[in-house]
Every structure is written in structure tokens, then in C-alpha cells.
């Protein structure tokens, strides 16, 4: 298999017609150039509102409806809040998939989605559907080419992550507010919520076997008490800060120094947590964890350990410079080994199909419906662990059948204007096996031929 095809399908999101010739001139450079300069934003993404404004909007909506519900219990909450949030979600999904389908820097897009999944929030918890895409574009997208520590800080300080993992509710047991409250009412709950601290250690940095203890989790949770969101809180306890943006609330922060992973962190307000995050980013467990995930995503479900080691070394050598890690990945021989093909996720499959057809997805419900049916609803992995990245998680019999049905459906919608043999030659090039080509050329109809092309192992792997 030629390097151009591998660059386009394994590192990118599949070739658009006519794209392979340009990539073939220098596939490595084509990939690495995509990481230079600022992220080129698709217009649809540029037009999305800021998450701060969105949070204010949905919070207002909720407050209004709470008021209404007190007057008459007539289901108004569902009627106004639900559809509004849903529409914002649809707009953001639409922008995401249009950008990916039309992008001429698909490796960059894939990395954005990779990190968005690494730092997953799930839209099955309110108000995540209204801000999931905004979070991806604000916290992840601008930071994927720099230092991992900066990406990590941007993520953990983003209101979406704080809300998703409940950190705005976490209150230091020794904080000023807890002490004051405990003087008034002994039974009121003012306590730690370890959710965010645990997931940072387990999922975002060190990994589950990264060498931390429950004590580290608890202490880290104390360190990041006060990492909250400005404006009025749910119970109206605070109102300081700019609504919808990160706000450090000294009043709920656990005072005093904490020792985490054997290192002592002085009580310096927000800087205490930032220092922990920077050290976590520099940890060798984090290097190995990130290296392993990248190699699994780009090379194989079971990546060669030597490559993981090389990526990990590059990470540690450069103080977590992600561009250096990507360069190592692109230059690794195993990355270009056809035998290491990955089974596409539904997300990969849908985007590569849109790209092959040069189809501008003008109906986001069609995209959402497709991904929902195939088991990968956008930004809805159901847990902070994100979507799995191995074929055994996606390769069920019924899941394949649903891909076939969708191949057939999408072929009926857009597939009868293109000759599937020519399209296969164009976007798969030498990854288009002769037997697949022959089977498609013998198809009864263009729609049937296109269905065979999309459902073929040639197209289903990357």
C-alpha cells in the first residue's frame, strides 16, 4: 500500500476525490505541515457561540423554567429547555462533521478528535449537549500542537470539564465556607467531590496503573477545590466572577499544603493545582500512557512496544511537546506498515464516506442518526473514559450489519451519481484490491456498487 493512501486514510479521514496525487509528492510532509501555524478554522466552527455565553443562556433558561414550574407543573421545562439545548447540540455536531468532511488538514482534525475523546465529556449529562462542541473547539483545538501541560490545563479549567465531573460542587472540608457552615448547622453536607481529581489521574494523565494511590486522589481533590465557574451557582451560594468562565473560589478552597505522589505542594490558591497538573504532565507514566494511546490510535490495536517506547522518549525529551511526539509517530516505520490496518470506528467511517462523496453534510440529523445507529453518538461516549479504540469494541456482528445498512442507505442518497469503480480507484488507489474492484464493477446498479465499496474491507479499514 502506498504511503499516500496510508497518510490519507490512517492519519487523515480518507481521501477526497483527486486528493491522493498531491499527498503522494511527500506524504510525511503533507502530514507534518498540517501541524504548522494556527488551526485553520472552518467557517461553521468560527460561527459557533462561546461556551461562556452558552452557559449563561442555558442557565437562564433553566432558572426561568424553574420559576414557571413553581407556578404550574405543566412540563414547560421539557418544552423549552430540551429543544433549545438539542438545537445547539445539532449545530455543533453539524459544524464538527462539516469541518472534518471538507478539511484539507484532516490529520489535524483527527488529532483534535483524538484529544477530545481522550479528555471526554459525555453529552448525556446536562448541560453538556449545549457545550460539548464548544469545549472541543476552545480547550482542545488550539492546544493540540503545543505542550501537553498547556492542553491539560486548558481542559481542566474549562467549565465543561468542571461541570461534567462536578468539581464546582467540591468543597474543601477545611475551607472558610465549610467552617462557617459547620458552625451553623452540623448536618449540612460540605464535602469533597473526588470525581475530577480521580479522572485526571486515571484517564487524563498517569493512567490507571500509573502509580497513584487513593490518598493521592483525595489530596489532589483537595488541591483543586475552588476550581469553579463564575456567576451565580445553582443554589445561589455565590455570584462572583464572569458568568460561564473559569473562576477560582478561594472561599471553598482547602487551605494548607498537600503531598501528592511524594511531592509537597504549598497552598498557593489556584497555583497549587496548576503546579500539580504540570508535574503530572511531566510524569513518565503520563508519557507512556499518552504514547500508548497515540500508537494504538494511529498504528494498531496492539502497537509495537518499540514504537510506544520511542514516542514516550520523545515526549519526555521535549518536556511533553506534542508536535515532537507526532513527528516521531509519522517517522516510525511501523506507521506505514499496511499489515497494521485499523478497523474504522463509525465516526471514521462516516467522515471518510462524506469525504469520498465530496458531500457537504447539510442535514446534521442524518449524521447524528447514522452515528447513533452505528453506536457512536457524537460526544456521547457515556463515560469520561471516551470511546474505545480497538476493533474488538466496534467489531460486533450486528455492528457490521448496521454499517452495511447505512452504506446502502447513504448510497441511495448520494451514491447514484458517481461510478463506484472510479471512486474506489480515486480514493483508495492501491488499497483497492482487484477482487473488490471486480465485484463492484459487476454490481447491478450504481447504488449496489457503491454499497459494496463502502462496506468493503478495503474501505472499512484504515
Amino acid at each position: 500500500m502506498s504511503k499516500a493512501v496510508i497518510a490519507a486514510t490512517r492519519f487523515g479521514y480518507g481521501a477526497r476525490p483527486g486528493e491522493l496525487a498531491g499527498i503522494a509528492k511527500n506524504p510525511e510532509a503533507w502530514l507534518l505541515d498540517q501541524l504548522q501555524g494556527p488551526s485553520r478554522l472552518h467557517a461553521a466552527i468560527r460561527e459557533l457561540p462561546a461556551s461562556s455565553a452558552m452557559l449563561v443562556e442555558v442557565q437562564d433558561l433553566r432558572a426561568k423554567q424553574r420559576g414557571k414550574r413553581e407556578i404550574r407543573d405543566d412540563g414547560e421545562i421539557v418544552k423549552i429547555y430540551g429543544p433549545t439545548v438539542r438545537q445547539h447540540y445539532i449545530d455543533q455536531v453539524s459544524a464538527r462533521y462539516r469541518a472534518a468532511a471538507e478539511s484539507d488538514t484532516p490529520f489535524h482534525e483527527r488529532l483534535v478528535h483524538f484529544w477530545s475523546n481522550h479528555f471526554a465529556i459525555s453529552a448525556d449529562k446536562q448541560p453538556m449537549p449545549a457545550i460539548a462542541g464548544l469545549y472541543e473547539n476552545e480547550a482542545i483545538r488550539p492546544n493540540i500542537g503545543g505542550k501537553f501541560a498547556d492542553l491539560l490545563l486548558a481542559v481542566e479549567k474549562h467549565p465543561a470539564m468542571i461541570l461534567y465531573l462536578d468539581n464546582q460542587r467540591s468543597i474543601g472540608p477545611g475551607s472558610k465556607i465549610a467552617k462557617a457552615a459547620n458552625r451553623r448547622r452540623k448536618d449540612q453536607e460540605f464535602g469533597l467531590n473526588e470525581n475530577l481529581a480521580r479522572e485526571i489521574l486515571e484517564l487524563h494523565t498517569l493512567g490507571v496503573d500509573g502509580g497513584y494511590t487513593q490518598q493521592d486522589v483525595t489530596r489532589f481533590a483537595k488541591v483543586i477545590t475552588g476550581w469553579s465557574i463564575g456567576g451565580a451557582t445553582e443554589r445561589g451560594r455565590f455570584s462572583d466572577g464572569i458568568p460561564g468562565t473559569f473562576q477560582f473560589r478561594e472561599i471553598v478552597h482547602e487551605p494548607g499544603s498537600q503531598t501528592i505522589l511524594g511531592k509537597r505542594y504549598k497552598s498557593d490558591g489556584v497555583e497549587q493545582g496548576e503546579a500539580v497538573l504540570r508535574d503530572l504532565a511531566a510524569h513518565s507514566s503520563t508519557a507512556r500512557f499518552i504514547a500508548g494511546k497515540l500508537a494504538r490510535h494511529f498504528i494498531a490495536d496492539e502497537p509495537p512496544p518499540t514504537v510506544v517506547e520511542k514516542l514516550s522518549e520523545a515526549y519526555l525529551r521535549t518536556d511533553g511537546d506534542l508536535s515532537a511526539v507526532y513527528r516521531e509517530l509519522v517517522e516510525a516505520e511501523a506507521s506505514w506498515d499496511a499489515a497494521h490496518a485499523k478497523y474504522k470506528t463509525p465516526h471514521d467511517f462516516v467522515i471518510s464516506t462524506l469525504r469520498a462523496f465530496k458531500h457537504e453534510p447539510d442535514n446534521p440529523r442524518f449524521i447524528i442518526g447514522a452515528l447513533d445507529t452505528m453506536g457512536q453518538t457524537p460526544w456521547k461516549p457515556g463515560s469520561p473514559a471516551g470511546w474505545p479504540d480497538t476493533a474488538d469494541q466496534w467489531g460486533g456482528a450486528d455492528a457490521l450489519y448496521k454499517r452495511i445498512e447505512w452504506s446502502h442507505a447513504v448510497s441511495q442518497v448520494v451514491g447514484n451519481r458517481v461510478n463506484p469503480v472510479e471512486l474506489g480507484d480515486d480514493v483508495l488507489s492501491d488499497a483497492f484490491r482487484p477482487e473488490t474492484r471486480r465485484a463492484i464493477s459487476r454490481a447491478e446498479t450504481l447504488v449496489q456498487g457503491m454499497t459494496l465499496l463502502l462496506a468493503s474491507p478495503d474501505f472499512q479499514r484504515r
Partner: protein
Amino acid sequence: MLSRRDVLKSLGLTAMAGSLPRLAFAKTVLDARFVLVVLRGAVDGLALAAPYGDGNYQKLRGELAISKPGSTDGLLKLDGLFGLHPSLANVHQSFVAGHANVVHAIASPYRERSHFDGQDMLENGAARNGALRDGWLNRALLPLGSRLGNEAAIALAQNTPLVLRGDNSVTSWAPSRLPDADDGTLERLQRLYAHDEFFATRLEQALRSQDIAGGMDGMGNARGNDARQFAELMQSAARFLTSPEGPTIAVVELGGWDTHANQGSNNGALANRFAALDRGLGSLRDQLGDTWNRTVVTVVTEFGRTVRVNGTRGTDHGTGTAAIVLGGAVNGGKVIADWPGLGDKDLYAGRDLMPTRDLRSLFKGVLQDHLGLTPAFLDETVFPDSAAASPLQNLIRT
């Protein structure tokens, strides 16, 4: 403002408008309904209408030969030479009533063996492959104009097929739930997956589960058989054609005719396909009600199949085939054929039914006598370079 007559004049309908009283003209153009059924995959014309009276038929067709008229599940007699496939009972009923014709040994000008290219030429109406990028039925719409401001033609499909694509505005409609992947496509995928264990085992498991689940598709819906889905599509076509401001022309497609293996004879795979087609045509007729009397339906395919049976009890891509013209407006009860015979020297390229009539003759006959298009417009615009294929005469009741 232009008068209707001026408009017609400018659009090439003058000969007709001048030769007929206005009322008759209006009736012809506005009341006539036309349905084009495109059978994709190359229908075996020798099974659709079998030449049981040809001495070579039994010999060449062997186990695929269909029993003679009068025998159990045998052919439905058309005349002394031809019998209709036993699954086509509704078509036969129309034939007996004088509202259906079979046109045999017919083919488009295409002489190669690719489905895609063959369908392209069937639909673009060109004399040569690749000569035209729009569809003949779209070009034919120009003088018909729009009907009360609405599109004159509709495709009962997700996406407009080539035959209706072009400069004139057309509409399309399909059920919101897209049809399931058909059995033919799944079989082809099974073959494609045969050498890839990951895909092969999973598809096999999935298909087994489908059977157990009693025919649910991948989307968790009950898997309708193709015949029911096609019948419903035909009913929808009829609803559009009878709605007061609806289109007067409809295009419907049905695939699954590429019978390379286990084609069957009186019964079997192809018989089931014919049954689906027949049921759909019956549904169309019933749903159209009185409008059926003003309707012409043509049923066509891109090319025929080999006369001899292949090594897998099927037939391969051929040339000459058969078409059906039916509807209350049809002057029927005939098999229209310059029968070339099935002797070794009679066959095209030594293997196919020799085409003795151009499909465009059939289309031109319908467009001229049923939809009122002029011969000049047909030859210049709808079917360029088709002068040799003169319109089939007397197809329409007068």
C-alpha cells in the same frame, strides 16, 4: 403575457396544436399519465416472455426453460410463439383485456456488457456511450412544461435517476425509511468478504441472527420483503399521479435482475422477482382507479442475458431482451417482435438474443402518441441520432 398557444408554439408543439382541436390537445397533454419502470440488473427477456414455440428454446434453455402454456405453473399464453412468465399474472390479465403489449428482441444501442454503462445509455437516450449527460425523459419535459406551476415528473427514489436528470425541474420522493439492503447485495458482500475472516464471520453471524429475529434489518425494523416495499412504492406513485396538482410522469426503479446463478424457471429467484414486479404493477393499476385508462406504463431494462445457461444455472450479460407496455391507454394484446430466432447463426455474437428493434422506437412511440411530442422534437432533442429508430406505431388507443 403569452397565450397558451404561443407557449406551445415556442416549445415545438405547434404541429400537434394545429392539427387537433384545443380540447383534445389539453386532454392529451394534461390527462395523460406515463410511468417508466426501470429494471436494473439486466432482465432475462427469454424468461419474461419465453418463445416456447421456437424449436430451439427448450434445447438451449434446458433446465431454465419454463413449461409450456397449459401445464402446471406453465407460461401464460400470449400467442402461438410466446408465453408470459407465470409470475406475471396481472400483466397477463391486462394483455388479455387488450391493455398490454410485450415488445421482444429489443435493446438500446448499447452493445457492451457493463450494467453501469448500459443503464447510462438506457437513460440518457444517446446513440453512443457517453454522448449525453442528461436523461431523455427530462429533455422530453420541455414542451410539457410545468403543470400548474408544479413539476411534471417525479422520481420515486431517494435520488433522481439519470433518465430524469437535466435542465427541466423534476421532483423526487421516497419513503422516509430507506429500503433495506436487498438480499442480492448481501450475497455479493458475502462473496466479497469470503477471503477476509474478520468480515466473513461477522456477516455470517449477523445474517443468522436476522433469520432468528424473524427478519429484522440492521436498524431494528421489521425487514419488509422487497415485493411489499415495491408495491407500496407503486401505490405512492399512483397517489402522486392522481393528485390534482401532482405530476403526470413517474419513474420507478426495481433491482435484483442480475441472475448469474440459480435463476430458476417456473419458480425460483427470478420468478420471485417477476412476482414482485407484477404485484407492483397490479398495485399501481388498482390505486390509479379511473386514471389507469389514461395511463401508459413501460417496463424496460438495460440489456438482456445470454441465451444459453451458464455453469451456475444462471445466465450472463447479454443483449436483446423484452419490454412491457401496459395501461388503460395502451392498444394492446400483441407481442411486437421481429423474431430473429434462436439458431446458432441467429444469435448476436453467437450468444445473445439478436436485437431487432431499438428501445428508443418504443419510447418515441409512447412520447409521440401518448404525450403528444412532435417527431421533429423527438429526433432533435429527446433522442438525437435516432432517425433510424422510427416511433413504434399504434401503441396507443385512439
